[in-house]
């Protein structure tokens, strides 16, 4: 209770001393936050109305992530706060898993229950048999809890299910990952190449803003996508590629750039390793060769390559973010990285900059114990180049039949609805049935809560303090999130839950701060600011330590690779027995009557998190299945008609989806926005609206290099009735 009382104290203080700023005249108070609706974490201000209720969220002008402008999801943040379907009190399961049958519990009862179970599991199996699956700011505190407990298995699905292959590709090429926000200098680029990335629909706020700035400055965009995306519509060249053939296009671009001698000779000579091997490797990979695979006209391949070369080094072959597609994703990302190397864009203005971050010191605590085993022990000969924990790896290792080496007995799941974030829901369910304890922390009753033994309701980001945001950027900066209001219902912040659990598990010394304000103030003072200052300014930007945003001309560079060079030929991949230079392999094609299932984002929603947000539901209530008119005509499908999708394994969507008959999609694929078709009736606005791509992704194409779960090898066909009805008839 002390925590919430002090939060209120801060609110009152701000009422008495209103902040300075252009919107002061609107006669309201504002508190700083950074957004939690997506991972971009834009910093902004929460404004309250005259009644003191949360009114709106606006970007903080000082913030490099948002530049004072939020995206629709961030602007719609109050919808998350006011959602009456929120989790309201701790819940303990009363019947078997998979159903929402709980009894309400007090915090003491719920936390005692968890602590007792965790200690029992540690005694019987060892603390290393517990894992954290997290996607949210509060994960830091639960991560510290598990580390203190003796577990090293802490995973975010954003690695193996999303950006992991890209990180490994850049690590093996340039010796460094791309990070988040991505270190791409769109603001000053002359040519932006998007491969399957759909900026504008994918609202990576800073990137979308910079793309718009670049358009203003006359930059050209090249988009490779089987779908005429918003970005494609703003492109000088749109390459309507046959799905799953991107690597052939990339290799032919490399061929053209090398054999037309359009590459940056001085850069390649000075900084790279393996150019001659690469040159020999792509000798026959002409645009004409690629044409037969990609269906892209050779002339279009040459012209687009020339466009990039003319812009070099101010050119970006965008590494993308969600890159787990076909199982050879590290290699595809490598090919993209290599074009950036050949054109000298890594380290140059308009290409890739060198980001810098603030190192926020941790509150002093005893050293974390060394875990006896980690998830890696379950895969002794696999995924050696995975530098982060695989969420899917933990999931698989929980099933005793798959791994004996490191079985997991307890999961703490924070802010991630695993049925929509890890493919193959049946396998996820099987893993859960092998657990002795599943704790789910969320703000909303997502489907995963129906499988939990204990559900802990977190208050929304608008009602809590959190870790200091320290993401890297052009300039190092920090941002503060503080409560704009008292937590509604019987909800609590993650830091409070973690500390209370630590106390009950005998780990209190790792959380020795009295309250969060004390810890944050101590951390901020080490950085030369204070909690009081950050409450007033929200964002603090520091000067860079060195003038090294870009390489200096002719600068000697040592890259963090085995050779110290940018590796066009990867010695690390060769050492592990993988192709040191990417090789094109054909992927399975849809059988007759089936279409490749592609999925993506809408600007108004994040993953499956926002479907129940009243403000965002108003913008997009359900997803649609994009179908080419020729295909629709053959199948007799009308625009707006509800149909069911069924995949190659006979899995039919739980709910019908509206057909969107549109020229914007190729005839060989179907596209849908991810994150719909929620199955939990407690989500009153989202339940049954649209279809879930995740449930149709039952075939997973594993990336052997780092364990990424490729999800674009699934094919769907159209059905005109639900499975139940079919059975009845």
């Amino acid at each position, binding site marked *: 209770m002390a925590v919430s009382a002090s939060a209120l104290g801060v609110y009152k203080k701000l009422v008495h001393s209103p902040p300075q700023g*252009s*919107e002061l*005249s*609107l006669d309201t108070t504002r508190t700083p936050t950074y957004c939690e609706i997506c991972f971009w974490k834009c910093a902004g201000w929460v404004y309250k109305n005259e009644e003191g209720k949360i*009114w*709106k*969220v*606006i*970007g903080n002008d000082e913030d490099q992530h948002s530049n004072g*402008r*939020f*995206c*629709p999801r961030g*602007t*719609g943040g*109050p919808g998350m706060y006011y959602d009456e379907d929120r989790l309201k009190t701790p819940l303990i399961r009363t019947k078997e898993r998979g159903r929402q049958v709980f009894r309400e519990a007090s915090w003491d009862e719920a936390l005692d229950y968890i602590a007792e179970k965790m200690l029992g599991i540690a005694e019987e199996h060892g603390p290393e048999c517990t894992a954290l699956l997290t996607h949210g700011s509060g994960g830091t505190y639960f991560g510290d809890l598990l580390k203190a407990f003796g577990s090293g298995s802490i995973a975010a699905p954003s690695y193996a299910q999303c950006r992991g292959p890209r990180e490994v590709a850049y690590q093996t090429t340039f010796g460094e990952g791309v990070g988040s926000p991505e270190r791409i200098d769109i603001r000053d680029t002359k040519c932006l190449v998007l491969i399957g990335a759909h*900026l*504008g*629909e994918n*609202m990576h*706020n800073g990137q*979308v*803003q910079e*793309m*718009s*700035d670049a*358009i*203003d400055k006359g930059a050209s965009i090249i988009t490779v996508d089987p779908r*005429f995306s*918003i970005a494609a*519509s*703003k492109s000088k060249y*749109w390459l*309507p590629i046959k799905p799953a053939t991107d690597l052939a296009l990339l290799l032919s671009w490399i061929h053209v750039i090398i054999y037309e001698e359009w590459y940056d000779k001085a850069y390649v000579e000075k900084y790279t390793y393996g150019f001659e091997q690469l040159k020999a490797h792509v000798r026959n990979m002409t645009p004409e060769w690629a044409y037969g695979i990609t269906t892209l006209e050779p002339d279009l391949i040459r012209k687009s390559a020339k466009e990039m070369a003319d812009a070099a080094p101010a050119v970006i072959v965008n590494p993308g973010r969600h890159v787990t597609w076909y199982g050879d994703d590290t290699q595809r990302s490598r090919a993209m990285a290599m074009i950036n190397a050949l054109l000298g864009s890594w380290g140059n203005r308009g290409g890739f900059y060198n980001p810098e971050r603030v190192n926020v010191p941790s509150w002093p605590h005893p050293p974390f114990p060394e875990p006896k085993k980690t998830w890696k022990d379950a895969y002794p000969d696999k995924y050696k180049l995975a530098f982060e924990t695989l969420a899917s790896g933990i999931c698989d290792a929980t099933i005793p039949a798959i791994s004996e080496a490191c079985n997991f007995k307890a999961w703490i799941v924070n802010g991630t609805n695993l049925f929509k974030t890890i493919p193959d829901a049946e396998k996820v369910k099987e893993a859960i049935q092998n657990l002795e304890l599943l704790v789910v922390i969320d703000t909303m009753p997502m489907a995963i809560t129906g499988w939990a033994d204990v559900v802990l309701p977190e208050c929304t980001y608008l009602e809590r303090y959190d870790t200091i945001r320290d993401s890297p950027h052009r300039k190092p900066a920090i941002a503060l999130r503080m409560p704009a209001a008292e937590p509604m219902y019987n909800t609590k912040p993650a830091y409070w839950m973690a500390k209370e659990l630590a106390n009950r598990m005998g780990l209190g010394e790792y959380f020795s701060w009295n309250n969060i304000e004390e810890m944050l103030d101590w951390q901020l003072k080490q950085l030369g600011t204070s909690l009081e200052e950050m409450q007033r300014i929200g964002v603090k930007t520091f000067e860079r330590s060195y003038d090294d945003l870009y390489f200096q001309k002719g600068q000697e560079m040592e890259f963090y690779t085995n050779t110290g060079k940018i590796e066009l030929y990867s010695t690390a991949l060769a050492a592990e027995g993988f192709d040191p230079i990417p090789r094109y392999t054909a992927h399975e094609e849809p059988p007759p009557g089936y279409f490749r299932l592609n999925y993506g984002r809408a*600007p*108004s929603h994040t993953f499956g998190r926002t479907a129940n947000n*009243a*403000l*965002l539901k*108003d*913008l997009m209530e359900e997803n649609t299945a994009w179908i*080419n008119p020729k295909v629709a005509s053959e199948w007799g499908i009308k625009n707006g008609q509800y149909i069911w999708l069924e995949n190659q394994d006979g899995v039919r969507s739980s709910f019908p989806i509206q057909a969107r008959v*549109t*020229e*914007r*999609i*190729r*005839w060989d694929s179907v596209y849908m926005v991810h994150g719909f078709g929620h199955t939990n009736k407690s989500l009153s606005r989202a339940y049954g609206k649209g279809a879930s791509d995740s449930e149709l992704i039952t075939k997973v194409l594993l990336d052997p290099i780092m364990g990424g779960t490729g999800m674009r090898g699934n094919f769907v066909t159209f059905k005109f009735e639900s499975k139940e009805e079919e059975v009845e008839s």
Partner: protein
Amino acid sequence: MRYAMAIDTKKCVGCSDCVVACQTENNVPIGYCRDWVVEVTDGTYPQLELENRSERCNQCNNSPCVRCCPTGASHYSDGGIVLVTPHKCIGCGACIASCPYDARYSHPEGYVDKCTFCIHRIKKGLEPACVAACPTKCMYFGDLDNPKSPVSEILKVRKYKTLIPEAGTDPQLYFLI
């Protein structure tokens, strides 16, 4: 003084941030909106064109909604902004029928509501909420009588169009093409 807005269709990505920003700023009830996003596709695969634009009341110089309002609730305010005085509005809906842009809606509290160019913000020297929020900075606002205003400056250098000019309403929403 003549307030106007220009929207750059080359930059707009159709994200609808303008819609949410308006909704929260003006407490527009859920299920209604004062502004909205239009997406127009033309052509056949792969020869395609697409236009995104954020639309709202065109704040016409010759507004049929003002002309047909039986009570005088719809009226011209500062800088040509068309406003509705809620307590004078009887909710007859004549203005809704007369608007070629379908820019008005019946508020559940019984009056007709529409975009005000955020006149409460303009008076304080702020931009309309949609303009201030837009991540692509595709919206330009200001006084056409002031040659230095953002909207005057952009209309000097870019090609533009208005919507349904044949309706003769002299709309003040310009779309950069």
